[in-house]
């Protein structure tokens, strides 16, 4: 390759990558850095920012009960993701094979995933309704409850209800990821195990689960990211209420930033949540054996 061609090619590469990189730098990396800086400042729209050190963090940790409540709710929300993944794995195992109609079942389970989350929130807001909702109706018909429950106005039931709605939406996605993981397992492993007389249980724990590690890791990471993107669902279904019973960190960040115009404090909350996300992802990465997220 001649030098002129090499420089020309370098110019092409630079021009082709520049627009995308610019967008990621301006809307991903710069905000990340800016958030950290902002979290150490006292910010107001009209005055120049003042450096205040750890003040925002100490307020968050020592004086803010809502932060702890939101953190706890976020942890519960995260805790529901492995349950959803296990359910999805069950469904994936059921539809993985030459079962007649498997693709119809797959489509049905997946159908809720590409929906607009705001619409999902409205749908489930209605499903949980005290009078018109299907859930109260079915539970009363079955004699499980005798009085209607206002699920979304109840301190005990509001958070589990939003989790049900979230699970309904993401289940299909987990299923598809796990299915493609299942289809990547070489069939001869199962044949060999069958020849050796390994029972179904052993085949599942010794072959299926270990071979599914990359797919499971992916599901866990998506599940962790879900705790961020659940904003739309919570904002529309309960807006964090009743009280702060369904407040997640992301809805609290939004309220602090765009409700109370406390960008500095909201930035500190964001940093805390992002740190949590990184730690959890790292733990998940280690738990599946270290190299599951490897590139190429």
């Amino acid at each position, binding site marked *: 390759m001649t030098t002129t061609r090499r420089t020309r090619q370098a110019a092409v590469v630079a*021009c*082709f*990558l520049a627009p*995308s*990189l610019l*967008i*990621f730098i301006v*809307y*991903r990396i*710069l*905000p*990340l850095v*800016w*958030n950290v800086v*902002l979290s150490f400042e006292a910010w107001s729209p009209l005055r120049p920012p003042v450096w205040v050190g750890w003040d925002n963090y100490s307020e968050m940790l020592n004086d803010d009960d809502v932060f702890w409540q939101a953190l706890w709710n976020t942890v519960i929300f995260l805790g529901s993701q492995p349950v959803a993944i296990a359910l999805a794995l069950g469904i994936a195992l*059921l*539809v993985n094979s030459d*079962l007649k*109609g498997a693709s119809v079942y797959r*489509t*049905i*389970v*997946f*159908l*809720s995933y*590409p*929906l*607009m*989350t*705001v*619409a999902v929130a*409205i*749908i*489930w807001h*209605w*499903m949980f309704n005290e*009078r*018109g*909702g*299907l859930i109260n*109706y079915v539970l009363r018909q079955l004699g499980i409850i005798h009085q209607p429950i206002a699920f979304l106005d109840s301190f005990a039931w509001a958070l589990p209800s939003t989790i049900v709605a979230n699970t309904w939406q993401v*289940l299909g*996605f987990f299923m*598809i990821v796990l299915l*493609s993981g299942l289809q990547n397992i070489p069939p001869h492993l199962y044949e060999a195990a069958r020849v050796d007389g390994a029972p179904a249980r052993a085949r599942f724990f010794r072959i299926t689960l270990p071979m599914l590690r990359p797919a499971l890791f992916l599901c866990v990471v998506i599940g962790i*990211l879900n705790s*961020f993107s659940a*904003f*739309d669902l919570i*904002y*529309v279904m309960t807006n964090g209420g009743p009280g702060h019973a369904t407040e997640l960190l992301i809805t609290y*960040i939004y309220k602090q930033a765009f409700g109370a115009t406390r960008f500095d404090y*909201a*930035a500190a909350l964001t940093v805390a*949540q*992002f740190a949590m*996300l*990184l730690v959890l*992802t790292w733990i998940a990465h280690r738990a599946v054996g270290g190299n599951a997220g490897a*590139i190429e």
Partner: protein
Amino acid sequence: MTHRDRLLLWPRHAALVAISIIMLAPFYWVLKTAITSENIYAYPPHLLPERPQLFNFVDVWYLIPFPRYLFNSVVVSLIAVAGNLVLNAIAGYALTLPFIGRRSVIVLLLSCTLIPFQATIIPAYLITAHLDLLNSYLGLALPLLSTIVCIFIFKASFDAVPRSLIDAARIDGLGDVRILLRVMLPLSTPAIATNVVLSFIWSWNNFLWPLIITRSQDMQTLPLGLARFLSYMEDTTGALYAFVVMVLAPGLLVFLMAQSAFMRGLTTGATKG
């Protein structure tokens, strides 16, 4: 298939039918409420729609500026889809070429996927304000103009194009732009379809970003319209559910038509990082 194997299929079908009913029930319930003319708060609710009619769908047009929301959503999504096609294709093509620092760029891109958009909202808002793009179509679409997952979908597809074909094109004197347009893209229709479907759905469903940067009702998109409808009217009217059906129907149609491309795209995008 032995007789015993066939018997074992029945419990599986039963379980899957039960799961399907649970998954479909919310769809049915909203559709039923949308076409019912009864008082939707009556207890017990009817499982089948009483006196089905379509008034609620007409009501939507009077209660909210539906065409305006629709127009805004379409404009923003078109900008986002066009941006994604062009920017992701050229970036994906650049990543197939050898250059110094290629590996660092890939690592940089992959680490960016770990930064959820929701964690950037405050500075992203301030940046957009500095660019004077608050409350504008470009401002709404800008953060969505390029998507890392889709860049890698293009890259994987371009990597699969035979080397000899590209070399032949080079010997014929084709430049990079022409190679991309005449050789790579015609051989990558599945990647193009995946890009269009994914970027359309992401932009169409986006809620938090428009919520933050739109100021006037004139600029609001469909998801904001839905949320606004719920908070102004409460859930007292079947029109809300008619609105939900109207918003979801196009997306579901796109999904059902492009289902296989969509699912394949999600999983390849996901496994390719």
